[in-house]
């Protein structure tokens, strides 16, 4: 029963208000992609023990999708941010590094 702050409406949302959407920052592979690229996009998930970026929809609130940086072991939330980005903002990265100095960003693309 997590609590995540919706970055759109600012509410601290109870997990029951939210709808999970799996791993964040996936890059869509369209008709031009190879079989391997498409397989990776469609099925390969990080299942991280530690820092994880994930998609959540404030389904019983403002209806917006947002992204969360969370630690799957300690349950610490490093921050939530709007979904309209290809990589987490710097303040989120800083918050992660503060707790896990060795952490390296590993999302599949950054633009």
């Amino acid at each position, binding site marked *: 029963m997590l*609590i*995540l702050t919706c970055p759109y409406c600012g509410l601290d949302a*109870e997990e029951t208000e939210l709808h999970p959407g799996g791993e964040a920052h996936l890059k869509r592979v*369209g008709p031009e992609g190879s079989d391997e690229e*498409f397989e990776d996009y*469609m099925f390969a998930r990080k299942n991280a023990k530690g820092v994880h970026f994930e998609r959540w*929809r404030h389904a019983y609130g403002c209806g917006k*999708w947002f992204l969360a940086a969370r630690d799957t072991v300690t*349950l610490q*939330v490093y921050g939530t941010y709007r979904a309209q980005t290809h990589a987490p903002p710097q303040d989120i990265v800083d918050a992660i590094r503060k707790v896990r100095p060795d952490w390296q960003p590993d999302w599949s693309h950054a633009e």
Partner: protein
Amino acid sequence: MTHTPPFRLARGGRLIDRAFQIPFRFDGRYLRGLRGDTLASAMLASGQMLMGRSFKYHRPRGPVASGAEEPNALFGLGQGGRFEPNQRATTTALVPGMILRSQNCWPSLDADIGAVNNWLSPMLPAGFYYKTFIHPRPFWKHLFEPIIRRSAGLGRAPTDPDPDRYEQAYALYDTVVVGGGIAGLTAAREAAEKGGKVLVLEQNPVWGGRTPVDHKAGEATIQALLDDLRGRANVTLRRNTMATGLYDHGYLLAREALADHDPNQGIPRQRLWRIRAGHIVTATGALERPLAFACNDVPGVMLASAVRDFIVDYGVAPGQRIVVVTNNDDAYRTALIAQEARLDVTVLDARDSADGDLPQAARAQNITVLTGSAIAKVTGGRHVESVAVCDQKGEGKHTGTIDCDVVAMSGGWSPIVHLYSHCGGKLLWDEAQAMFRPDPDRPPLGADGRGNVTATGAASGDLRCAGDLERAEGATMPVWCMPANAPYKLRAKMWLDYQNDVKVTDVLLAAREGYASVEHTKRYTTLGMATDQGKVSNINGLAILSDALNQPIPQTGTTTFRPPYTPLTLATIAADARGEAFQPLRKTPLHAWHERHGVSWEPVGQWRRPYCYPRGDEDRHAAVNREILAVRNSVGTLDASTLGKILVKGPDAGKFLDMMYTNMMSSLPVGKCRYGLMCSENGFLMDDGVVARLTEDTWLCHTTTGGADRIHGHMEDWLQCEWWDWQVYTANVTEQYAQIAVAGPKARDLLERLPGSIDLSQQALPFMQWVEGDIAGMPARIYRISFSGELSYEIAVPAGRGLELWERLQEAGRDLGITPYGTEAMHVMRAEKGFIMIGDETDGTIIPQDLGLGWAISKKKSDYIGKRAQSRSHMKDGARWQLVGLESLDDRVIPDGALAVDEGTNPNGQRKTQGRVTSSYHSPTLGRPIAMALVRHGTGRMGQVLEFPLPSGEVLKGRICDPVFYDKEGARLNG
């Protein structure tokens, strides 16, 4: 020595009111207790020490504890719908007229035939199921399993519905203190002084925990703390409330007993608090551990703390002659209290010396104290009669015998660490105190990454938390086996887990057989797996295991602490979400009309849709047939309001819909409709419906009834997370409109009878177009679309006018035999036309190409959701099952889901399959059964016959044919 009255002492009993007697019934006998009694104290006061039979060996058992950790004294309580099994006598308050039944015994608690297992116990060691019941193989199913199933399970499940009300409430607090003893109340005062909302939860009806029993000045100290807290506006005190589990980010569940076992108060029986706490303080105290000596399960062997609780709280003497056996100073409190109550007391102390304040006080009261001593064996069957005394360091050689009727044992204390551990808090082994206690450096973390749980008082390992009230205590000496070098014969009678009958020898056997992990040993021996979850047994068990494995205790570790701390009744978890309130019911604007006209409902998601409208003596099948023929021959109306309606608007709406649908929507002219298919990114068909272009930049997308919310969410997902720079808005307007399908050859005649501005002629409104205007004085949008295969109009009006339009239609069409029809008639008619239905022809593994819908997939578009997936080799494999029609050769409806068998068998020895029936009906239009099926290479196998074996052994035959059974040319629908 015999167990003799009086059991209720002449004086004392701080919780009872001697002026009020309370009658209750136990196994048919009438007994009496006093107001303030628990079931356990009332039964002990009645001389009833025997309270249950153990699970495996059916040994006679009495209460061991006085609280939530009690493993033995469990009863079936109440009658009918209020019957509840496994109710703990030590925590259940006595209520007038209570009816108790003993469990796990037959024919009675006193004469239990299952006790024969006790004599067989040498043949029933740990893991005996796995070892014994393997061979011969066929015996398992027909002999062993039925017998084991009959003897498994403790208590009987109630058979009637629970008549009581339960409720849930949500609360937010800055600090929640769990435990209303001295540590908890002190912590609450500290938190309250700092500010913020503070909640204090206490599991019992009374405050104070152990302090009022253990300390002369305890009650006054607790009262002063309570007075202070009650005067503070930011503090809430809640008794009778058990914190059962702690979850992520400070989510705490607590069960408040409001009217337990007393249904006459007219209030909910229990309330489940769902609390969000900024910080949690666990002041949950500690549990006393039993000692492992031979026959430590005979009724009358109790925890030392429980013996003094019964004396001080309830004025009940569990016996007249008490032997206290201990490895610590605390148990001397029991000796002193028993002595003061004029009971006969002897203390056996396993330690070589005992010189703390408490032992000295005991000696000063002329209590006999034997140090370095132990119990070799307890004698007695249904009740303790005597103990054999021996040297703790020896092998059990008797040095004397003491006649007694109660043994008060204390093996030290274990902090209650459950809540601290539920959500990831770690424990450390405290060698000096021989206990696992919360590691303050590794608490559970909150969302901010900081610890959000603090343990305090005895729960943190500080057993002397009563501050000034405490006296100096000597050190506890770990005693895991009494005497230390007991031979096998004695160890085989030392109980660890009372409820599940796990003994020291069972754990030793598990260790010998290679069970090195404490989690595996738990499951192999069932140690700690009973309804008490091993509250009194686990630490002793893992200490024995560590010893056998020759490793330190922290290396063995504990088993996982999982919520709930004490059992939670399912009714509390369900609360008001029962019956009609289980989930919301969605009603169309025509719901009441359907109900007035004899509707037979079909649940579709949260909606209720008319399945059909039986008339007179008609059954559902006859009603459906009549409705279909009415539509085919004249005209019918369907409530289509539940169909999803999603507005998509904006400069990039066309481009967006081209991605959402497999076909081209951007090229659809204003005023026209197009049937569209929606696939998942994995290529599978997930929804279908008619899309209408309303204006240059606005489309209205119809979805399936069940798909409306999901498809709207799907669109929003892609718009917000992938193409966020596209200018598109979506709105789910499903409930804004009432939509009525008017279908049949007389549909146009009927609509033209209603006054209005709309030209419904074939020239003005041909198939797959829509028009806006006025009908019967209502603003309406009319779509010329058809799911029945007949001439058909779907009319959308504002939801509030739906009933008016429906009634005007019924009135205007009376002479035409207008017939309201339901979803089943709709389903049969669409199958006659070979139209697919999401959920029938699709199951999440079907692509449009399988269903002959390749025509609805644009070849011109470079991309759409699912396009890449559909180009994978398996999706293009010619061996995929394809949609065909089936003609039954037996003139019988082939059951939905029936499999078409193929030659040969698969590796599991099962017949190979080559297809399955996806929709199957009797067609009243054609007067014969029709079916749709997915068949390997189906479209190339017209005329071939497939076999469908039924579970009954019969084999039905179907011939592959075109899936369109009716009006192949579409003349009727275009008419």
